[in-house]
Every structure is written in structure tokens, then in C-alpha cells.
């Protein structure tokens, strides 16, 4: 990921003239600012947004739809939607990352529900996570550190909460399907999903 913009005075930033625009002091991109610039048609800001988030967007799409070719399509559709609707992002209502992953997840789930692809159904949630590709940039190091934190936070969930959240989020299943898959009484899977997300939220210290 050497195309992430360099920290400090590496390369001048021709459009906005402010080398620090769209990045925090540590050099990590400020996603909300990049979205704001993108909404005005700044393609270079959008390229930086893509570089900073595409691994999470693509990784999520692959995890849900399974088929890499379809995951690429979902990723492409999602970024196009993010570009098109960037002006509708409101930082007061949540983080930029959550906003764009919400768009991605919805598109991925729509894809598997409409296609109901057989390739996805024969693989179960219990298989191991997709490996995180490491490289030497600060962004990747940050990402893997975050992944480590998330895995730690997931330990705060009960087994059934973890499974219910995973089947819903990564499997793209409805709460009714999740109830059947986990042998839960109808109507209780939604409670497990909610309780699990609340624990994850509190353990990660995100949201309100």
C-alpha cells in the first residue's frame, strides 16, 4: 500500500494545497474529511479513501458472498455508491467507516439473498477467518492491531451470541434462519444478536 499518501512533506498535494488535509497528525487518513472532499468531486481524495478502506470493504464482501469475483463486483458497486452519496454522510450520526461498511454489508447481503448462491451455502461459518494480508505500512499494522482488539472483545460474548452475530453479519442470514441453524426458539435469535452486538460495542468502546 505504498500509494497511501506520505506523511509530512513527501509530495505536495496539488488540489487543496494543504499537505495535512484528509489525514490526522499521525498520517492516518481522516475518512470523514476524505468523504467530504469526495462529495465535491475530488477524485484524488476518493482514491485515498479507497486505499485506506478497500481491504476492509473487499474483505467483508468476500466473507459474505464467498465468491471472489462476486466480491469484487460488490466492492465496486459499494465504492460507486459511496462516491455518489458521499454528500449524504453525516458525521454527527456515526463514523465514516461504519457508514461505508453499512453500505457494503447491505449490498453483499442483497447479493447472497437474491442469488442464494450454492457456493456460499455449502461453506459454514465455522471455517476459519480469511487471513489478513500483512504489509509494512502503518495502516496495515494498525488494522491488524485492531483485528486483535476485536477478537479480544468477542471473548466477552457468550458462545451463542458470538455464533448468532457471526451467522448474521458474516453469513448474511436472517435472524429467523439463524434461530433455526442454532436450534433456538423462534424470536430469540434477534435478542442474541442484539445482546452480542451490545457487548461487542461496550468492549470496543465504540458508538454512544
Amino acid at each position, binding site marked *: *500500500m505504498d500509494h497511501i499518501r506520505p506523511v509530512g512533506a513527501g509530495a505536495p498535494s496539488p488540489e487543496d494545497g494543504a499537505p495535512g488535509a484528509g489525514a490526522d497528525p499521525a498520517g492516518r487518513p481522516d475518512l470523514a474529511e476524505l468523504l467530504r472532499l*469526495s*462529495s465535491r468531486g475530488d*477524485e484524488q481524495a476518493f*482514491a485515498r479513501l*479507497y486505499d485506506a478502506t*478497500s*481491504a*476492509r470493504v473487499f*474483505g*467483508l464482501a*468476500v466473507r459474505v458472498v464467498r465468491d471472489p469475483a462476486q466480491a*469484487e463486483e460488490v*466492492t*465496486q458497486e459499494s*465504492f*460507486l*455508491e459511496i*462516491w*455518489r*452519496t*458521499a*454528500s449524504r454522510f*453525516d458525521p454527527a*450520526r*456515526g*463514523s465514516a467507516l*461504519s*457508514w461505508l*461498511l*453499512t*453500505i457494503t*454489508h447491505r449490498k453483499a447481503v442483497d447479493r447472497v439473498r437474491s442469488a442464494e448462491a450454492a457456493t456460499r451455502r455449502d461453506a459454514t461459518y465455522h471455517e476459519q*477467518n*480469511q487471513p*489478513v*494480508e500483512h504489509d509494512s505500512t502503518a495502516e496495515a499494522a494498525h*488494522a491488524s492491531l*485492531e*483485528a486483535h*482488539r*476485536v477478537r479480544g*472483545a468477542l471473548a466477552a460474548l457468550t458462545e451463542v451470541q458470538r455464533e448468532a*452475530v457471526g451467522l*448474521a*453479519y*458474516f453469513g448474511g442470514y*436472517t435472524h*429467523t434462519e*439463524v434461530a433455526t441453524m442454532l436450534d433456538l426458539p423462534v424470536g430469540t*435469535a*434477534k435478542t442474541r*444478536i*442484539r445482546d452480542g*452486538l*451490545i457487548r461487542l*460495542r461496550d468492549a*470496543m468502546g*465504540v*458508538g454512544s
Partner: protein
Amino acid sequence: MSDYDAHALSGAYAVDALDDLERAAFERHLAECPECRDEVASLREAAATLAETTALEPPAALRDRVLAGIATTRPLPPEVPAPVALDSRRRPRRRLNLLVAAAAAVLAVGGGVVLWEQPWQDTTHQQLSAIDTVLTASDAKRTSLDFDGGAKATLVHSDTVGRAVLVTEKMPPPPAGKVYQLWLDQPGKGMVSAGLMPIREDQRVLLSGDAATATGAGITVEPEGGSPEPTSAPIALFDFGRKA
């Protein structure tokens, strides 16, 4: 929707684990429930952290395709507050209090949309104006039904607009654990779901689906979340009078 435990659906909604009918019903609830909006936002933040564990570098060629795609796509303009003057709309004088309440409800929905449903904002916006478009269409046809106990349901459909709107007054809430579901009778297909009715006494709700091809509409009582096809006898049927 306060009659059933809508709050419990916030987690499933945040991770897209509701079916279409449940989602439509929950989004109507969200428009009226700031607590649920806050909770969904916070649970989406939590869910987004899960994507940290599955990060995967996409192929380099994808970057080129994405950037080529945006180069030919115009970003949408920002939402600006619509200069809608409610008092400029012609409304009957009678039942003023109810109308004021209805107007306030519309305002609340609009406000909630702007603050809340970012990715799907346009759709909901279209719904609000679509209701007005149907109700004021020159070819709008109305069919009213009176229920025991003073409740009234009026179905308004317009062939030029292609949509139908149900206007209810004094509707009693459905039995516990049940919802009112709306249907359009489509030739060759039978009753096709047109969405769930929010649980309020007086309201206007846009039916999903093509009203220009439908020969009628109906309301049934269905289990919470709705059904793919009617599972009970309709409590109301509206004939669009096309057979004449």
C-alpha cells in the same frame, strides 16, 4: 409498532438480518423512535469493527476499475432543507387537531430521515412525496370501507402515478403479535405483498408495487413480521373496478 417489541429488532436490523417486510416495518418504527435510531447507529459501529478481522487486499486491477467508474459518475448534491410550507396545503377545516397531529408526524418522519437513514435517504424521501402525488393525482380513485367501532380505511389509487395509498382513521391496533399487512391483487399472480401497515390509528401509507396493473387491494392480519402470502381471510378488500 409500539405494540410489539420493536426495540428487540435493532440488532438484527443493524446487521441486515431482517427480511424485507420486517425491515420496512422497522424503518417506519425508526422514523418515530430516536432511542432505536441511536441504538442502531451504535450497533452498526460495533458491527463495523468485525470487518477488521476479515481485511483482505483487493486485486490492484479493482482499484483502477473503481476509479474509472467514479470518473464518469456525478456525486449527488447535499441534502438541503426542503422549503415546504405546510400551511400552504389545502386541508379541510374539520378535525383540525388530527390534521395537525398528522402534519407533525410527517414532519417527524422527514426530520428523522434527514438525520438518520443516510444510505437509503432518497427512497424514503420519495415515499413521502409519492403519497402526496397519489392523493392529489387528477385520476385518483377512492374506495372507502367502514369498520365496526368507527374505524375507516380509504384506498386511493392512481393509474398515472402507478401507486396506491391507504388512508386510515381510528384503526384499532392488531391483536398482540400480529400486524396488518397490505396486498395488491395482481393479474396472474394473486395477492402480492405491498408492505406492512404501521400501527397508528390515523395514517397514510404508500403501498409498494404497481397499482396501475393491480385489480384490487386488501388488508389481512398476519403474524409479526408479515407473511409472503396471505394466511388469513382479508379484513378489507378494495376493488379497483377494472372489470367494467
